[in-house]
């Protein structure tokens, strides 16, 4: 049974909150580990190899954003940040540093668990499927079960979330996806208003898959509606 439990690394300097998070996570069947210091976070991350990182943005030592970047630099592990600030700048900064999702304090245990579950629940039984997206001159190949993305044979490293976003767009090349639909399909939220999540992740995705992110060809913006796959 222990082996089946998802490991969650909680990076938080507030002992009471960390303990409470531990209680909730254990109660929901996760295996939490803790680190209170930004400097130590990376070492502990390497030792524990968690399935998901819960990261408080305000940390002593290294700032949460730096930890986020460092973790993202060596792993595509889902990162959910805990933030006390819901201001756009802070949220966008966090997402741009590599976080997949964020929860604003104070949050309900259920909300947190739902987000953690959504990040952990990933296409376990993907059928063998190969997709292409983008116009012929900038085409990107997606090997869905293999979780790999290539252009002209060279691999592009995507985080699982970016991968899911690209797959969602590529599966229905003719459809225009609203941000809300993407939030539901990729993040697993219903009635979520936070379109910044989508915007920032589309930017991050474009930075990796587009030849020129300023003039996207693979992921196109449909003004006032949302996004769609670029096709030939």
């Amino acid at each position, binding site marked *: 049974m222990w082996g089946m439990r998802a490991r969650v690394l909680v990076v938080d300097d*507030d002992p*009471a*909150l960390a303990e*409470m*998070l531990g*209680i*909730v996570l254990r*109660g929901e069947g996760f295996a939490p580990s803790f680190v209170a210091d930004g400097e130590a976070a990376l070492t502990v991350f390497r030792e524990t190899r968690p399935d998901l990182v819960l990261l408080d943005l*305000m940390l002593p030592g290294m700032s949460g954003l730096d930890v986020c970047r460092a973790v993202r630099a060596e792993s595509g592990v889902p990162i959910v940040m*805990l933030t*006390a*600030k819901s201001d*756009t700048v802070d949220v966008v900064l966090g997402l741009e540093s590599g976080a997949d999702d964020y929860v604003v*304090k*104070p*949050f*309900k*245990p*259920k909300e947190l668990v739902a987000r953690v579950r959504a990040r952990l629940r990933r296409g376990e039984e993907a059928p063998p499927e190969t997709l292409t997206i983008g116009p012929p001159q900038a085409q990107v190949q997606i090997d869905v079960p293999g979780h790999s993305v290539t252009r002209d044979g060279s691999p592009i490293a995507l985080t699982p979330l970016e991968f899911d976003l690209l797959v969602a767009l590529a599966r229905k090349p003719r459809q225009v996806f*609203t941000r*809300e639909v993407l939030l539901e399909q990729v993040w697993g939220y219903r*009635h979520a*208003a*936070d*379109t*910044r999540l989508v*915007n920032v992740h589309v930017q991050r995705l474009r930075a990796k898959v587009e030849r020129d992110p300023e003039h996207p060809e693979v992921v196109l913006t449909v*003004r*006032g*509606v949302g996004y769609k796959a670029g096709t030939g």
Partner: protein
Amino acid sequence: MRRRARPDAPDGRVRLVYQRFRRAAGWLSARVLARWRRSLQLRVVTSALLASSVMTVALGLFVVHRVTDGLVVAEKEQALEQLASGVTYLGDELSSIKGQDDPELDSVLRQAARNLSDRGSRATDFAVAVLPTGNRRLSPKYVPRYSPDDVRPPAQLTGLIATGEQRGYQFTRTSLDDRPARPFLVVGAPVDTQAGRFDLYYFVPLDDQVATVSLVQNSLTAIGALLLLLLAAIAGIVARQVVTPVRVAARTAERLSAGLLEERMVVRGEDELARLAHSFNQMAANLQRQIVQLENLSRLQQRFTSDVSHELRTPLTTVRMAADVIHAASDTFPPALARSTELLSNEVDRFESLLNDLLEISRYDAGAAVLDPEDTDVRTIVTRTVDGLAQLAERTGSELEVVLPDEPVVAEVDPRRVERILRNLVGNAIEHGEGRPVKITLASDADALAITVRDYGVGLRPGEAQAVFDRFWRADPSRARQTGGTGLGLSISREDARLHDGWLQVWGWPALGAQFRLTLPLRRGERLAAAPLPLAPADAGSRYPRAIEAAPRALPAGAAHPALTPGPADAAGTEEEQDA
């Protein structure tokens, strides 16, 4: 049939030219007028020029007059003196003549006239005429050197002499030969002798005097013109000395108001202008200090808000989670403990929303709220909000009715803020709707979109329409609160609308319910002129006073225009004339 002037017809062409001329003249006069209004320097120079030209002309006229007078008087005196000696001479010459019939008379007269003419020291154009009166045997005029026909004493003077005047003079223009007429002084006097009466006339040319006067005139004109130019230049320089610093001050003030707080004037010398510059700089320094202080305060406030936010939220999160964990297990608790747990959980919720609202309000107060606009189909915001509140509506029994246009309503808005406004409005409508339906309508035109939220609850009493947006205002303090809002929702909503340059307004009447209307421009930075939906709902009928003009007496005392709250700014009036 009406005749129309064609451009090719002559009168038409004239009219065309005239019209063009008029247009050009109008344009020119407008330009000049504008310049006149805008340039202090121009006005100063023009006024100085006008005043000094009046002065110069008056002075010149006076001088010319005096010079002319002096010259003429001297000439007249001299001419009369000469005449007097001429009269004596002629009298002496004729004293030997005994009677009118003396045969010598003619030759004596002729000789005397020649002598008189020669005695006149004037070289040219000086003429003498002797006119025998009443002696038919003599020639009518003795005029040496000139043709007698050309030398004609003016009738007025001859008349004067004929009446017995001893001497007379007259200025006239005449010509003694074929040359053009010139000014002359003619003096005349009678000479009574035994041989009868003879009238003696001297024609004195005034060429020299005229030349002198015109020289004086010309000199004066030249000097005057030069003086005027000089005065204009001086006025210009003086005005410039005053105006330039004023212009510099104006430019500096403009730059200051544009946000360049470091901008200062150069202080030179110790005069009034230096004082102006000095005071100006002092004012700018004060302003800058105040602004920097305010900015610092604002930054401090933002910092504080952010810190409080973090410091409060972290423990609150722990409390929240603990309360939820306890609450989840409350089935097994004894009733008092279970209820306490529930209260704890609910109040933590309330505390949280209060904290959020307070932080949001303080963000607005600190001027730290920023819009994060993106092109959004507002229909999706409405749908999402309504979906999110469906549960609450179900609990109170209100039916949510949504009217959306078929076409997307794409606007440059901050979706989170618009959703927050809507959540507030619809939430309020459900809370105060007494279980009756709540109707949400979205409409747009070329420039703006409007969302109305209509409820059929208790409505608003006169005067309350103003108050609903006040912080912590409660519709009815005695009424039990159901959903426990923070009392800040509508204040925040109004700030949210204002941040969009939009309007948030309310209509309401007792027992008829209320309708909130949010109006937003489709594009950022555009001013709202009108809303695509009326503020007062059509289904309210005419049971409420639509406007004060229509039914002033129907209003309760003290209520001016109770139902309609004008735009977010505090303008008053009916919905057609709102101005945000």
